[in-house]
């Protein structure tokens, strides 16, 4: 239980750092560390496949994408944030922490129990047989993402030609 709390606290602390740090590259790296914590939590919850995806894709690929974007937009990219944003965050955070602690338990008691019993079979069977349409949708989403990125950068080249 103590290890779980430490891991979850690390996850929240690095997520907060990712939001509050002024340097965007440091913020992206904090986000990667938070993903690493989340991946470890997934492993401890007996979800190794989700953990592997979280660490390799989110902590790896998305961090590279963020670092690349920060590098490409580094010059004149500083945006002045409102002063109160960072100062007021601890106050709002503590207020939410208290409300969360008070309300969450009663909310959980209202969630109905799932009718199904313990799962049988392997992860592969669930993924390929029960959730086949999810995989089709995933292919569609990846294709849409690739086409969108291609379209966005092709438009830029046309602008240059003009």
């Amino acid at each position, binding site marked *: 239980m103590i290890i779980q709390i430490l891991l979850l606290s690390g996850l929240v602390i690095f997520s907060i750092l990712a939001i509050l740090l002024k340097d965007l590259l440091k913020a992206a790296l904090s986000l990667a560390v938070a993903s690493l914590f989340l991946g470890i939590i997934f492993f401890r919850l007996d979800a190794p496949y989700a953990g592997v*995806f979280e660490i390799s894709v989110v902590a790896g690929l998305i961090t590279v994408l963020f670092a690349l974007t920060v590098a490409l937009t580094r010059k004149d990219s500083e945006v002045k944030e409102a002063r109160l944003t960072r100062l007021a965050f601890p106050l709002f955070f503590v207020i939410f922490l208290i409300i969360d602690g008070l309300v969450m338990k009663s909310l959980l008691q209202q969630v109905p129990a799932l009718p199904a019993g313990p*799962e049988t079979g392997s992860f592969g069977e669930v993924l390929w047989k029960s959730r086949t349409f999810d995989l089709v949708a995933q292919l569609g989403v990846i294709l849409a993402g690739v086409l969108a990125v291609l379209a966005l950068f092709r438009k830029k080249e046309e602008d240059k030609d003009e």
Partner: protein
Amino acid sequence: MSNLWFLYLFFSALLIFTGIYCLLTMRNLIKLFIAVEVISKGVSLAIIATGAVKHSILLAQTLAITYIVVEVSLVATALALIINIYKKNKSLDIRLLSKLKG
């Protein structure tokens, strides 16, 4: 097991709150997408923790993997958009976008 569920969802709500606070108050486009990432971490944590507690971890893992794939596509597209916006406006300030005319 109920206490464990409470613990995970408690922290998950904290992550979602942190992300929403950043979305509402910050002006830097990259920071806004970092906030979206933080919110998605909270949602992933809630999915896996609920699956683990309710003995549906295999289903929860498939849902989390689908969610991660959608997240990657979203981030790739959004960051490409941000680069294009930066090249046009020479700034990452979200307030400049309000001057766009359709």
